[in-house]
């Protein structure tokens, strides 16, 4: 409605515009971006590249970010996009994978049980498992951020859990 739109404009003029502190954003979210990139690509070299790409892109688009919530969504969306059809295929992955995971892991005395299994999943499923269980996003939030239907998120989660249940049989019971 014309009237309401006008009011919104006026409101916007009076409010102080949100400014992103780039260094702070990196400190807060580099972990999230890196982990999501690692989940989707399966190796640290690509995760490094994507981390760099996403934050450089952030600088380019910094004026478009409207709030802290927007910043977080934007970063995740950018990471998902940059690694969109990213896959790295080569025989070396099978041999290197475990070593790569250990390399990626900075400090973890216990054995990685779940991580290798999750990394084996198709990348769509890996993404939703990571975002749902680690980052704590709801199905709706994941759907909104990734631009997919809610049902798609649910079915990907379901399929992933079914696979993990088999892979982790005897190791983890409550998948």
């Amino acid at each position, binding site marked *: *409605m014309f*009237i*309401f739109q*006008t009011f919104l404009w*006026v409101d*916007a003029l009076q409010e102080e515009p949100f400014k992103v502190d*780039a260094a702070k954003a*990196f400190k807060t979210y*580099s*972990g999230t971006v*890196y982990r999501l990139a690692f989940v989707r690509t399966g190796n640290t070299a*690509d995760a*490094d590249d994507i*981390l*760099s790409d996403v*934050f*450089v892109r952030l*600088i380019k*688009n910094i*004026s*478009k970010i409207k*709030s802290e919530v*927007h910043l977080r*969504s934007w970063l995740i*969306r*950018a990471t998902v996009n940059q690694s*969109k059809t*990213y*896959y790295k*295929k*080569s025989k070396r*992955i*099978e041999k290197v994978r475990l070593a790569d995971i250990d390399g*990626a*892991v*900075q400090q*973890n005395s*216990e054995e990685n*049980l*779940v*991580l290798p299994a*999750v990394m*084996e999943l198709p990348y*769509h499923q890996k993404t939703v498992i990571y975002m749902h*269980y*680690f980052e704590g996003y709801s199905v*709706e939030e994941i*759907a*909104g*951020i990734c*631009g997919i*239907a*809610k*049902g798609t998120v*649910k*079915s990907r989660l*379901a399929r992933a*859990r079914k696979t993990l249940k088999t892979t982790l049989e005897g190791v*983890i019971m409550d*998948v």
Partner: protein
Amino acid sequence: MFKEKIIKEFEAIKPSEQTENAVLLKMEQEQEKQISVSPKKPAKKRWIAAIAAVLALVIISITVFNMPIFDGSNYIFTGSKDNNNLETSSNNTASTDNTVSKEDYSSSSGETSSKKTEQYNKIKFPDIKYKNGAPTNISYTQTYQLFEAIYETEQQHKKHSSSGTNSTLGFKGDSNSNNYGNPSSNYTKTNIQVEGVDEADLVKTNGKYIYTCNTYDDILIISEVNNGKIKKASEIELENTAYAYRYNSPNLEGIYVSGNRLVIISEYSIYSEKTHMYNYNVAVKLYDVSDPFYPVHINDFVQSGGYMSSRLIGNNLYVFTNETLYGSKLNVMKKSDITQYLPCVATGDADLKPISEKNLFIFDGEVNTSYFMATSIDINAGKRIDSKGVIGGGDEVYVNSTSIYAVSGRVTYSNNSKSYTPKTHIIKLTISKGKITPLAKGEVKGTVLNQFSMDEHNGYFRIVTTVRKYKLATCCNVITSSGIDYNAVYVLDKNLKTVGSITGIAKEESVYSVRFIGNMGYFVTYRQVDPLFAVDLSNPKAPKILSALKVPGFSDYLHPWGEDVLIGVGSMGVTNTLSDNAKISIFDIRNPADVKEISNVEVPHSYPRIGEDHKAIFVSEEKNLIGFAGDSVYYLYYIDDKYGLSRKEAFVMPTGETNTANLTICTRGIFIGDYFYVCNLNGIISYKYSENSIGKKINRISF
């Protein structure tokens, strides 16, 4: 425990300090670069806002005195004075429309829903005069009411049911669509599903120029090619195009090139503060490339929704988008937020406006808070011809020269068995010279794989689905798969009534590839072994499976070759991970009751799922070649007289800094005369091809 383990194990994944420092340095450098570049935002926005503020004050004082000109409802809902009547239930002749008696909300065994009816009684559904299987117009008000009523019902259902989950879900089928391959012409065209119906792709050529998309940086590059020589002609960077300031992070989706017209399809998102979510819109950018060194922008055609697909038939471009409204939006949305829940269009710089109510339709039994939109644009005249919106429909399309079939996943919930059965809604729209007309709706069980799961032949619509039942987990609000998966073939008539079917095929497996050829349909299901089914569809009322050939591995893509043979591109299926290699198979289909695999080859250093994108596959019956990109080379395999496969070429692919992008599936191989061009976002390398010797590199251009 699973959750704790995930958190603990993932927490330990961090970038190294070295990486962090490197990134921070790059960020600083970019920041300095940004400071030296002047801001793009037009300054005129500020004084427009100021004028608007003054006008606002004027308007406030006028509305206080209640002048009818500024009556909100008349402004939005032009023409119809009867809108208000829809909101009162007493005027409805069918009072049941106000209660939740639609099948999706009650148990399938017919348990009396009177108790439920009481609980849901207060939710007002709009009084829409549905026609069985045929489209009905729906007004803006009715659309708003319907979406809100569905949402309200879901919310109430959540409260009342013990498991607390939604009873409605819409989801896509698994994805990640008659002359096939290359009709004899001087240059390679996109590998499309239906002859005469072009599909958008990342690389296009007209024999003189090659157009390549860089979807990483959203840039289109035009290169002039001549007997292997390549020269960059021009480039179009989406972020620097007309009206770019309104586009938030545009994504280059694909292009068309036809005559002197270039069509760029881009999707962009706008963040909504209100809902904390992104709204997606598609901008079709039309250019005149009479001189590809200087492309001239003609106009932008914008429509709301996320990009689903598109087709070019003659001069008419059809663009399909869809939009789903989630709870967070429905919760805060007002009736006046018309651009949030109605399909909208705009041309050039104008604001998005909802399409006319006479172009908005709904079919009976629709319970999804989403819409599907199809628009048509005459790319020669530079005008939009038609826009149609259908409530609910559309995740995948099959299009031929006369019809559009839009399918979407639906789920029906059974209270008794507490299980969900996925179904596919099919909406048929006819097309004629750019005019789009919704015609009929049909429904089958299961979900489709992709556009190739569907086909129209002699007026009959054939569709292959995978049926997978879902059950509710006992905790955690998650749906898990259980019950028997199986596959099915359905045949529907021109009004989308099912006339024939085969169900229960290949239990516990899902469809990996489908191809319809005339009266036959071929599809592959997979779990460990790959049956290739041959189905006889000559009698629409009684489809028959003629044979099921089992071979190891599976095919993601099936391509007819001549009359006798079907080519399959898929995976060896050894480890079922990305470590596997791609596989090319040749099936003898002369006797459909006895289909045989006559040859196959494992392609080394290749991507096992390359067949998932049919446009990535190059086929030339004229040259007896099939090809696609591997990890670092583009392969061409030769098919001899006895249908034996042998590797002919392994052309080096353009690589570069953006290796990190999806290089393999974005790379295309194009013949122009005797020269072969391997193209991707990194550049183009040309080779002189010869039947009797190895191809020779001629030229290379890096972008």
